[in-house]
């Protein structure tokens, strides 16, 4: 009797697990399926599940609706540029906070922590005015510079620099390595897992960002991929959901594929924030 009850319960649980999984994955599958349908099929009710004939044409239409090569290049330049700048700025700062005692250290570190909590949406207006004073509005600089110093990166790196044993640094000092060299050739390699974690977080976050490019840019030459994709919606004459979904698939699919391959790593990159 007990055995039967347990099997029944297991079955119910499996059905529930599948249901929850579907609620979160099916919309993406629906995006995929819609992207391959013809217009008449998209506007068929009730909807069909599987595309009657697979339309690869939708991707070509989406891709040629704007200068997508430029968008992709800009997205790479912005997300990559931010990442490099954050790395160059966060490493020395984290090293100083982790390894030196100096007057004002706690105050300066406290200021960085405050910066961790206040989102950019709250102060985009003054930053925009600043950028327009410097003549940087509508350039890639206006998308990169405001994110140059990452409080989150400084915080993470400081933690891992603090864990490097003192002996390692002492030994390097006895070998008369300069502080600068110790930082880049000993501390940084030892913090590699944290750097990868942070790199993934930062790149995905800025790759997906829509708000900042929307505010700071107004011409195609400096727009990023999410802006390009969102403009598909504005096309005249009824919403071409198949083309819109094809465009979105271009944005979403690479990230989802990478996610399911490097799942553990990416999840820890995002969840790390809470530690």
């Amino acid at each position, binding site marked *: 009797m007990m055995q039967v009850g347990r099997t029944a319960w297991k079955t119910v649980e499996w059905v529930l697990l599948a249901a929850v999984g579907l609620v979160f994955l099916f919309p993406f599958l629906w995006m995929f399926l819609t992207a391959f349908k013809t217009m008449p099929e998209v506007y068929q009710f009730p909807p069909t599940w599987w595309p009657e004939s697979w339309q690869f044409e939708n991707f070509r239409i989406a891709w040629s609706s704007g200068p997508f090569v430029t968008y992709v290049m800009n997205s790479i330049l912005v997300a990559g540029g931010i990442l490099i700048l954050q790395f160059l700025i*966060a490493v020395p*700062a984290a090293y100083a906070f982790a390894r030196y005692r100096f007057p004002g250290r706690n105050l300066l570190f406290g200021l960085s922590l405050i910066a961790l909590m206040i989102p950019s949406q709250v102060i985009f207006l003054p930053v925009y005015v600043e950028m327009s004073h410097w003549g940087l509005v509508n350039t890639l600089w206006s998308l990169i510079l405001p994110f140059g110093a990452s409080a989150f990166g400084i915080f993470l790196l400081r933690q891992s620099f603090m864990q490097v044993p003192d002996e390692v640094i002492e030994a390097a000092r006895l070998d008369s390595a300069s502080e600068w060299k110790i930082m880049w050739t000993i501390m940084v390699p030892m913090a590699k897992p944290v750097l990868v974690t942070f790199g993934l977080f930062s790149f995905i976050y800025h790759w997906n960002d829509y708000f900042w490019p929307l505010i700071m840019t107004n011409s195609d030459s400096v727009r990023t991929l999410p802006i390009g994709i969102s403009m598909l919606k504005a096309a005249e004459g009824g919403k071409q959901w198949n083309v819109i979904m094809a465009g979105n698939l271009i944005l979403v699919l690479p990230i989802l594929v990478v996610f399911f391959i490097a799942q553990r790593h990416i999840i820890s990159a995002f969840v790390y924030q809470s530690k």
Partner: protein
Amino acid sequence: MRKAVAAPELAGTSNQVTQKLEGVPAVDRMERLRPYLYVAPAMLFFTLFFFFPIAYVIYLSFFDWSLLNLEEMEWVGLGNFTALMMEEDFLQVLGNTLVYTAVTVGLGIFLSFMLALWLNRKAKVYGIVQAAVFSPHIVSLVSIAMLWMWLMDPQYGLLNAILEMVGLPGYTWLSDTKSAMISLILVSIWKGVGYNTLVFIAGMQSIPKDIYEAAELDHSPWWRTLTRITVPMLSPTIFFLLVINTVSSFQVFDTIYIMTQGGPVNSTNMLVFYIYEQGMDFYNGGAASAASVILLAMVGLLTWLHFRLMEKRVHYR
């Protein structure tokens, strides 16, 4: 000619000696400056793109100005704030923001706590479902907003088709003042619940196992273990998620911009979208910066509270 650098602490003591001899040796001075040089770039960026903008937006909120012509600014004192408080649209925006935040955060945290209790298990299936639930979190909100617009299409959308299949009437979703807000909340919970769930699971795994073993020896019923051990032990996590989720709900923009543009009739207009519209579309810099200051105060208050309570937690340990 490289010198062997002493440990920073030792360098400090030798400095005190040399200081008495007047003229500090250049090398020591360099050593004392070094940490400041390392921190300087970060501080420069924080100042330019964070602390100065905060001060600047407060300053701007006392003027009547437009992005079209920054030369012409007129001092109005608290005029922008009083004007906002008199404006019905803005009060509705504030109300919308609070309702959206309360429901999204409350429901989101409750659901993810339940999911975490359920999915916090070793077997592989649970890991797969965890990943599935998390997947929307890494996808651009632009795509998520457009995907859900399509799912919520009142005539051809999948959601209404499913409702019809099970014999329920279709729903107006985004095109109705009554349901537009609910639809936005649904999307943001769908997007955010996975992140919260995994943070909860990480928190649950850090609770020492022997506490549960002791409870089991005492034959403590499951709900008592839950309310007396799991929930109290997770209170820092719950608090962290409350703050993080509230701050991010205050910032909601992408879904509004793409899905509703604040409509129908202002029913989904919220603070960041309002600031954007006032500043970038209507060129009303005064109203936009005053609204920014109000938002900033709300976020600042939460941040302050967060640090205060975090500090307490550290002391009690």
